[in-house]
């Protein structure tokens, strides 16, 4: 055995001892000689991790378990809702990963056995791993609000997970009359991508402005502030009449009754705030409160917050060894696609170096987040992080937002860069 570390030796020895006490049926399968990594989840985190492990060390076998044959990105899906981007342009296959030698398995991971180091799937298959990367994204708190569960999600879509709900919501907007009301309900923090509901409102406002100008958007926010608030409001003032009687967009903060407490899907009505103020919508986009993806609960990777605690350098779970959790499911960074992409690259190195028996170097982490508010109007935030006292921390000065009061030329450039970011990051993930 080459490259066996003392830690691995102890584990193998312990395993063999345990096995000899309980009988042959619990012995792990004979090692193939090749190092094996299993990745659960073919979204931004999982796909990036699979690709970068293969890039770093093609001798490592990588199996990616992903239920869906195609991935529809959530990021930029708001432009599809706005009618300025095709659905096809946000659709990605796993051919790129296949070409890199990733074993892509279209199945659903339903169980993880950390002691046997194996993953089981819905179809009954078993995958043994030396290291496991879990990138399951989010799940919804289905029963947090009375009247909202999976059965009403087609009528009142969330469109907050890679799925064809973007199409459902877009079709509803197209069918809506001129003068209709759109309601967007924003959950309590933390949730996936804090600026996204407000980019969504902006993109829908753009559509309404040109096609259904008598219509309105009401955003019910379960917090008193929202991400990049000043920048969004400045944009809405310039583009959508915010602050005037003709504003397309209005919003209600938590303290004024912005938190939805009950939904009546049949009557297309939401009730919000402590007095259960009633709002009727022609189109309702309800974004439920969130937790880590389901498999993280099944596998005991979450703590009582419903998210996964991890080592910030390696992303190894604090609850089970040799299992790494990246992306929205962990508590390491603010939840965003770019964060998952950045974490995946660091995690890939952590896993590869561990399997090679080598030291892992110094990580850097990044996030860059673009919001397109309308034609030629974009804003962004970006940041570089490092480890400080074992935790991911912003490097001083290395994080910030677009300026307020920027020229139209600067806002226009940010849209070009947003589209460039999109082309390059999706190639980085799936290419």
């Amino acid at each position, binding site marked *: 055995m080459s490259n066996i570390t003392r830690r691995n030796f102890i584990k193998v020895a312990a395993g063999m001892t345990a096995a000899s006490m309980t009988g042959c049926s619990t012995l792990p399968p004979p090692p193939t000689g090749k190092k094996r990594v299993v990745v659960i989840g073919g979204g931004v985190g999982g796909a990036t991790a699979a690709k970068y492990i293969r890039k770093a060390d093609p001798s490592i076998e990588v199996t990616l378990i992903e239920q869906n044959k195609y991935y529809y990105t959530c990021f930029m899906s708001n432009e599809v809702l706005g009618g300025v981007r095709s659905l096809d342009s946000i659709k990605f296959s796993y051919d790129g990963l296949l070409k890199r030698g990733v074993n892509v398995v279209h199945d659903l991971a339903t169980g993880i056995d950390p002691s046997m180091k194996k993953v089981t799937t819905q179809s009954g298959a078993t995958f043994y791993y030396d290291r496991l990367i879990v990138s399951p994204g989010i799940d919804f708190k289905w029963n947090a609000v009375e009247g909202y569960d999976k059965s009403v999600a087609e009528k009142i879509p969330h469109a907050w997970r890679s799925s064809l709900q973007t199409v459902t919501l877009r079709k509803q907007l197209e069918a809506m009359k001129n003068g209709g009301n759109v309601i967007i309900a924003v959950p309590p923090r933390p949730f996936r991508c804090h600026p996204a509901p407000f980019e969504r409102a902006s993109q829908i406002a753009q559509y309404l402005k040109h096609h259904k100008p008598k219509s309105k958007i009401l955003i019910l926010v379960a917090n008193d502030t929202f991400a990049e608030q000043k920048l969004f409001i400045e944009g809405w003032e310039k583009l959508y009449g915010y602050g005037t009687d003709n504003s397309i967009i209005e919003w209600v903060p938590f303290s004024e009754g912005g938190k939805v407490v009950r939904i009546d899907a049949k009557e297309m009505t939401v009730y919000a705030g402590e007095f259960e103020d009633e709002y009727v919508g022609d189109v309702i986009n309800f974004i439920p409160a969130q937790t880590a993806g389901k498999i993280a609960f099944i596998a005991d990777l979450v703590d009582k917050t419903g998210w996964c605690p991890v080592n910030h350098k390696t992303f190894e779970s604090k609850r089970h060894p040799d299992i790494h959790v990246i992306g929205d499911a962990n508590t390491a960074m603010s939840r965003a696609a770019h964060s998952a992409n950045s974490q995946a690259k660091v995690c890939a190195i952590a896993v590869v170096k561990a399997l090679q028996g080598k030291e892992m170097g110094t990580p*850097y982490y990044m996030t860059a987040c673009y919001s397109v508010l309308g034609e030629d109007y974009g804003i962004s935030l970006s940041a570089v992080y490092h480890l400080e006292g074992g935790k991911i921390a912003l490097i001083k000065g290395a994080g910030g937002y677009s300026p307020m009061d920027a020229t139209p030329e600067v806002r226009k450039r940010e849209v070009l860069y947003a589209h460039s970011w999109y082309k390059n990051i999706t190639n980085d993930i799936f290419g």
Partner: protein
Amino acid sequence: MTYKTTKYVLLLVSLLFFNTTWADDGSLSMLVHNCMSCHGPNGASLGPATPTLASLNPSTFIKAMEEFRDDERPSTVMKYIAKGYTEEDYQVMANYFAKQQSIAPQQSVDADKVKRGAELHQKYCKKCHDEGVYTTQPSTIIVGQWMPYLRLTLDDFHTGIRELPKRVLKVMRTMVEIEGEKSLDDLVHFYASQAEQK
């Protein structure tokens, strides 16, 4: 030693001693791979506007990062990102991207603009940019760069938001005065058209 000489000596030293590879501790990987989320595979941007870094002259790369860091050059996100890295990081990144193969982007050009741009280049730019345009040494990537990025760069120079040596700015402003602002667009189309010949 002058500051400039010191920088080149440091660059040479870094080329000799900081040549870490993925086979080592992964630090190089974790440094340069972050850039690729915006700047493309190995820095060869897929556009439409974020600039290609692949094959970029290392001292041009370092100068750009320093100017972003010190707020001496306008930017949207680079002003923050550049502050996240050290001088040593800049040198490692610069060395890495300099070695990457540039891939000329597929861009459509207007034949009339290309023709006018060729004449403008002859008249106003060729004197200094002859070598700089057709190769990547010693200045920057012009042929093979994304057109929107070239255009916004020229705009920033022309308006004075970004600094140019006085005599260069004078030539550029003279050109725009005589030939009109469309001359900047014509030049961009001309340079983009030259990419096929590389």
